[in-house]
């Protein structure tokens, strides 16, 4: 990577002499003339195929029932819940990158937040579809919501499944708001630069009549901060919600207070991967610099160590409790029929991750991408090892059983990447992927003329 001259010691990691015009051209240029059209078509095409696979799997599922999946006695929760937790974990990272770094005022965030927020939105949608498809009668999912009905029935508020509904809906709402409000000034610029009436109209609607007055800016600043403050506790509300789904039961191996933190940590991987893909596709290497990748690598390493702490604590707690069944479940995790999932999680999330101690791994896009891919796979294995083996080792030996995901489990999971990729590819073409005005502001502040 011949990007050494770009490694600047500025707070925003951007070249000092980067002009406003260059920033605008690099970000708004692709909306008119996309630089890597062929690559984009491939991405979109693959996304479409995967989306078709997803729709096909959903049709098979709805046509026949959840029996098409590998779930059975005693493993009632299989790939459906696993993938739900996996996608949500991915979503959390985006919120953290954009909301937390906004509140602690890290100027380097401005080139990453838009792509991370879009990722969160799509990941939450991919995740939110799972609990619905997972139902025996998915068309009745709205019964978990409090709505006026002639039977006078409410949801059962003691159930974590009902909390999930609230958590996901709030998370989705706040994610959309945070993204849309955050992008208003950029949509306004896109509106002003639009070459066709249709684009003018669409960007104009999205910009909500933004004129850039002092009052607009003051309100905008306040709103984004409030939304950021809302978003961060929401991440923990959501992750605690689905952790409670596990802990509220009688199942050994699920009673861990670490789960909420566990599921949040280590999900920076997809942000790193997307940052690498997006900077290449849009040719914005001077905006998302190796220093940015370096920082994402460090974040990945730090959160990875939090996950490692979780693994260690999970290994220690059953023995500390002395509960025979807890120990039994732990042994099933690390040496049972699906021990591969535990060791794969260790190899990917602990082993491979250590490569990030080296700067030339963090700053090299292909190497960082490989580590990020390994972590994504490791996170999947982690969810499997947390969810499946405890169900296979029930309290009564007579209920012990096995679990194998079916073909339709796999197609739905693989297809869900289409649900992510298709809209994401469209965003790449039609949404300014970098928060231009914030980058410019950071540049000005750094130079002392802002």
């Amino acid at each position, binding site marked *: 990577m011949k990007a050494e001259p770009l490694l600047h010691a500025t707070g925003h990691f951007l070249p000092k002499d980067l002009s406003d015009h260059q920033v605008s051209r690099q970000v708004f240029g692709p909306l008119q003339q996309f630089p890597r059209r062929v690559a984009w078509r491939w991405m979109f095409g693959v996304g479409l195929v995967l989306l078709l696979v997803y729709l096909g799997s959903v049709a098979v599922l709805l046509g026949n029932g*959840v029996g098409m999946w590998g779930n059975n006695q005693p493993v009632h*929760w299989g790939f459906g819940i696993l993938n739900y937790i996996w996608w949500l974990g991915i979503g959390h990272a985006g919120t953290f990158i954009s909301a937390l770094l906004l509140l602690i005022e890290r100027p380097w965030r401005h080139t990453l937040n838009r792509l991370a927020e879009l990722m969160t939105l799509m990941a939450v949608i991919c995740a939110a579809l799972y609990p619905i498809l997972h139902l*025996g009668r998915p068309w009745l999912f709205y019964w978990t919501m409090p709505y006026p009905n002639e039977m006078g029935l409410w*949801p059962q508020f003691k159930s974590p499944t009902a909390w999930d509904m609230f958590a996901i809906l709030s998370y989705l709402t706040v994610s959309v708001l945070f993204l849309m409000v955050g992008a208003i000034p950029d949509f306004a610029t896109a509106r002003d630069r639009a070459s066709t009436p249709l684009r003018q109209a669409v960007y104009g609607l999205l910009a909500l009549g933004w004129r850039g007055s002092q009052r607009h800016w003051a309100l905008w600043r306040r709103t984004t901060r409030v939304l950021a403050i809302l978003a961060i506790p929401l991440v923990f509300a959501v992750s605690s919600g689905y952790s409670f789904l596990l802990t509220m039961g*009688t199942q050994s191996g699920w009673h861990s207070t670490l789960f909420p933190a566990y599921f949040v940590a280590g999900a920076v991987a997809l942000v790193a991967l997307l940052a690498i893909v997006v900077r290449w596709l849009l040719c914005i290497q001077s905006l998302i610099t190796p220093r940015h990748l370096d920082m994402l690598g460090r974040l990945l390493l730090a959160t990875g160590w939090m996950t490692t702490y979780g693994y260690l604590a999970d290994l220690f707690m059953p023995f500390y409790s002395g509960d025979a069944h807890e120990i039994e479940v732990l042994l099933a995790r690390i040496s049972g029929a699906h021990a591969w999932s535990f060791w794969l999680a260790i190899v990917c999330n602990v082993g491979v991750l250590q490569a990030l101690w080296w700067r030339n791994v963090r700053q090299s896009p292909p190497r960082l991408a490989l580590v990020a891919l390994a972590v994504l796979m490791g996170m999947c294995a982690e969810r499997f090892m947390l969810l499946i083996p405890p169900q296979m080792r029930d309290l009564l030996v*007579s209920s012990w059983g096995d679990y194998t995901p079916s073909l339709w489990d796999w197609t739905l999971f693989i297809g869900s990447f289409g649900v992510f990729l298709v809209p994401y590819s469209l965003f790449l073409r039609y949404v300014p992927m970098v928060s231009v005005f914030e980058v410019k502001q950071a540049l000005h502040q750094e130079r002392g003329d802002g």
Partner: protein
Amino acid sequence: MHWLRIDHYYQGPLEAPRSRFQSLPCMHCEQAPCETGCPVNATVHSRDGLNQMVYNRCIGTRTCASYCPYKVRRFNWLDWSADAAPSIQAQRNPEVTVRSRGVMEKCTYCIQRISNARTDDKQHGDDFDPSAVVTACQQTCPSQAIQFGDINAPASAVSLARRDPRHYRLLEALGTRPRTSYLARIEEEGAGDEG
């Protein structure tokens, strides 16, 4: 669908194991984990303490089954009765609702028989007498190992049996307070369990 599961256990050396079994209907726990799990109130306590399953309210999250430590709940993963003519469906389920695809089911303590007995008593102007109810498993058990009755009535057969020193509850340490409970079997060589 097993509403009454027979668990099989072996004891002793592999060459000549002694065979044991235990029948497991729904435990109808007082502190039922399944009831806290259901987001739509499809599994609830009745006034007489039954753990009821409301099929037409169930949306199939399977949280109840995941939370059940006895794993006595069974799920309709697919539509098992679609191929059968309505008359055959009714024949197989003469007194209970035909369960659709995607709902949970389990032992109900033969709620239809309890309701019938209650209605009969009401029609004759009598107070409801639970001891007159005979559940299907109780009826078919040749060794009369299953008893059903009102544990609130101190003189009922089940209450007497529950005062027996051999009485125990399955997975009692979990604190679910199951209504179904067992009498331990006493043998010359040692104690074995029997439902």
